[in-house]
């Protein structure tokens, strides 16, 4: 238990651990002291001078980002000196700021815009010509608009302290200071630089990929989990017009802090991919197929299965399936008689850790729910590029159910011998030709659910997009089939689906869907299982 200190901030008493800064303590009473240079994940240079507040007894306002709390301290963030200082600092920023908000990507989520709007002068007094730095390509995904820079050095500190690959620096001094790369050696080849765009408080660092794509205020933000590796970085999907427009990290100190890797950040086009299967497809004995409704499709499935009692059921799943989806399928498999369960996942050659926050790494397994699959006893097969390993399934003459694996390496003969071949996925390909049923399912971005990350943390994600056509979450489809077969009750929500799972898997017992909240819960057993 750390030693606690009691102080008063804007009239409200607050108790915080000794060593806490005033700025962090103020957050606890719901007060965000305006600031630019401070970022909780890096050192504090106290240079923007925006966060100065009155501390009783101090001769002049103190920088709240570096001043630590003291017993019985009385802090006033709204004193005339604090407000006057903020107004002054904001005016200074605007002396040379281009105010090109109408064409600036940051507009709508910009700390300069917001703070000036809240507390700045309504008219600037400067009539001098503005300093011009122009635009610079920093390499990687980053463009630098020097004139918008507020010289907070967060970007420089991220590269030197967090990524620990010094690629940026301040050159010159005084108001000629500008952020620059070392000669032509820009950000190319670094793997975490997207974070500097996130932490830049203004529109000075922007993403090339997002440049002028949409306006910030047109974006909906949905909490989610990165589906690109097994780290499980907490993210937000920013969507507009039913498309993911960009991906941003979401704070979770247990998993990714404020950061995410560039690979995951930019790996979202597949979510937006068109040409989706929009309706269930049923193929009869003659090989001719028809699209149909769900009721008809599920009836066909049950009919197909009923003639095959006693044959084994081989399942192939994707490590992008949610825990609820995978659990629904493994349970159905059990009820139908059981059989082999496999998944395939692409792997990177190396893990790539973030040096300044090494518990965060782009993991080798490039799928978000390898942990969940393994927890459900599904075995990994195939090559490290996510192909192969399906020789036994391919010619199986019983039941084959594929969930989510795109089977891109397989040909038309896949499942051709099967008594019943059900494909639940998003896209058709050669290997779905032989399927008796092709059922459209949603991606993680279109449904609610959970993933289990590399350390056994179960984390929730929320639907960000409308699913195409009749696509439904796999747990819902499979749950309905299961209810028919076992005369049980189908889960009506992802929460219920998770509850079923938590009851069935001893390792998850005690976890609740609500309890996981935004930051997830760790299942002890799952952690051990994945460490073995």
């Amino acid at each position: 238990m750390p030693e606690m200190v009691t102080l008063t901030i804007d009239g409200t008493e607050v108790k915080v651990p000794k060593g806490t800064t005033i700025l962090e303590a103020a957050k606890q009473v719901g007060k965000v002291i305006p600031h630019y240079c401070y970022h909780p994940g890096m050192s504090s240079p106290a240079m923007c001078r925006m966060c100065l507040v009155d501390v009783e007894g101090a001769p002049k306002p103190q920088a709240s980002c570096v001043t630590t709390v003291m017993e019985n301290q009385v802090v006033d963030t709204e004193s005339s000196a604090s407000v006057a200082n903020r107004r002054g600092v904001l005016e200074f920023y605007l002396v040379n700021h281009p105010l090109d908000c109408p064409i600036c990507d940051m507009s709508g989520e910009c700390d300069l815009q917001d703070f000036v709007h809240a507390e700045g002068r309504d008219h600037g007094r400067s009539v001098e010509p503005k300093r011009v730095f122009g635009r610079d390509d920093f390499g990687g995904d980053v463009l630098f608009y020097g004139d918008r820079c507020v010289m907070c050095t967060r970007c420089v500190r991220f590269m030197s302290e967090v990524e620990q690959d010094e690629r940026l620096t301040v050159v010159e001094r005084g108001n000629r200071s500008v952020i620059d790369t070392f000669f032509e050696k820009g950000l190319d080849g670094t793997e975490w630089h997207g974070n500097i765009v996130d932490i830049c408080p203004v529109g000075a660092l922007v993403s090339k990929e997002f440049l002028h794509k949409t306006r910030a205020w047109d974006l909906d933000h949905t909490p989610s989990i990165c589906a690109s590796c097994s780290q499980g970085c907490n993210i937000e999907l920013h969507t507009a017009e039913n498309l993911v427009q960009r991906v941003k990290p979401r704070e979770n100190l247990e998993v990714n802090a404020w950061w995410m890797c560039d690979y995951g950040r930019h790996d979202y086009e597949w979510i937006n991919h068109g040409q989706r299967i929009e309706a269930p497809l049923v193929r009869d004995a003659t090989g001719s197929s028809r699209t149909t409704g769900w009721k008809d499709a599920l009836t066909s499935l049950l009919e197909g299965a009923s003639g095959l009692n006693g044959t084994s059921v081989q399942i192939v799943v994707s490590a992008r399936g949610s825990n609820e989806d995978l659990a629904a399928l493994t349970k159905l498999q059990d009820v139908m008689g059981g059989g082999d369960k496999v998944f395939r996942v692409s792997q990177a050659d190396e893990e790539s850790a973030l040096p300044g926050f090494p518990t965060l790494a782009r993991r080798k397994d490039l799928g978000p729910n390898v942990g969940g699959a393994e927890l459900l006893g599904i075995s990994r097969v195939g090559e490290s590029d996510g192909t192969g390993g399906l020789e036994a399934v391919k010619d199986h003459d019983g039941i084959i159910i594929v969930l989510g694996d795109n089977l891109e390496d397989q040909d038309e003969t896949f499942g051709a011998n099967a008594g019943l071949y059900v494909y639940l996925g998003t896209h058709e390909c050669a290997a779905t030709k032989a399927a008796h049923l092709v059922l459209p399912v949603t991606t993680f971005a279109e449904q609610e659910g959970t993933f289990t990350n590399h350390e056994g943390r179960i984390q929730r994600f929320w639907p960000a997009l409308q699913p195409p056509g009749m696509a439904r979450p796999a747990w819902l489809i499979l749950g309905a089939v299961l209810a028919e077969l076992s005369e049980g009750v189908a889960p009506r929500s992802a929460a219920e689906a998770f509850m079923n799972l938590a009851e069935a898997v001893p390792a998850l017992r005690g976890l609740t869907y609500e309890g996981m909240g935004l930051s997830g819960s760790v299942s002890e057993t799952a952690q051990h299982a994945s460490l073995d």
Partner: protein
Amino acid sequence: MRVISTHFGDPLQRRLGTYVERGGYEALKKAFSMGPDEVVETVKASGLRGRGGAGFPTGVKWSFMPKEATKPHYLLCNADESEPGTFKDRELMRWDPHQLIEGCLIAAYAIRAKHAYIYCRGEFFETNQVVARAVEDAYEKGYAGEDIFGSGNDIAVTVHQGAGAYICGEETGLMNSLEGRRGEPRVKPPFPAAVGVFGMPSTINNVETLAAVPHIVNNGEEWYRQWGTESSPGTKLFCVSGHINKPGNYELPLGFPLSELIDDVCGGIRNGNGLKAVIPGGSSVAILNSEEARRCRLDYEGCIDVGTMLGCASVIVMDDTTDIVKQVRRMVDFYAHESCGQCTPCREGSAWAAQIMKRIEIGEGTVEDLDTLMEVTEQMVGTTICVLSDSVAPPVQSSIQKFRADYLALISEQESAGAT
């Protein structure tokens, strides 16, 4: 009356042999026999105050250092002298380098440091060479380095040549620069006595401060206090420049009247002109008009009494032909150029103030500009990491207050030009 400038003009003094013949390095021997704490007490009792500008009592500063050197301690000599109007440290170094080295060694001993750095302004090529040569000589004869005079005391001395930035004279900017980083002042606390250069306890003193130390150790605190005032004891070098007949460095007791300095010591104002203004302490202090200058006593308190500061006693005298606006504009330009750029008020404010000043100077100013200048400079006071930012206000504000007519003349010229 000279204490530290006794040998100015005598090239022989640079030689170690001459320095020793004339009693040099006796103070160091004496200090070694006194023990560190007694040296600190002596300097404290002498009332010596820092000559780098702030006038902080030197012995008190030394006493902030930990009493046990569990980590390496460092003594830093601030020889970055860059304040406009200041040229005393350079002279102290080039005429009497061993006096400074001896002062550094005594101070290092007093604060239990085994290493002293002399951070010398980059542009001072000759000075750098003279001091570096003297350090070499001192090493050769065993006055510096290991086991000095067989006393068992090891004190290394290193001369570091700066790269030419005013901000590297700010104590923590100097430390960053010495460590090979950008010369950017650090946030305090922690203070240098706790976390200084290389993260270790450090004390930093100005050249002139350290040059006085051997004399105080040799002769005792009472001797030193025969000059100056109760709270500003001792002698001080005054760097006098501007429109006077005999500019130069003059060592005088603190408390000396400014008018006597101008009229008697420096031979009066050039061409028999009238006095318009005096800056008594370098560019960072308020300008005095002639009436205030006449009343000013040159010690720390005497300057405060007339609304300015002694600073580093760089007296800039301006006669009645002086274009005050231009002079102030040049000072503001200097600060804008030298701001390290970390703090928003300093980075943006200094450059903005310089732009406004320039506009006024070329006849494109307005009366509102004067209000803006007053407020902008006020927004730069007390809001930043170091006090470079605060230094812009005194010259700008005092000149607008005291020489408003000079500004208005330039402004009304513009306004009447606009009217025709």
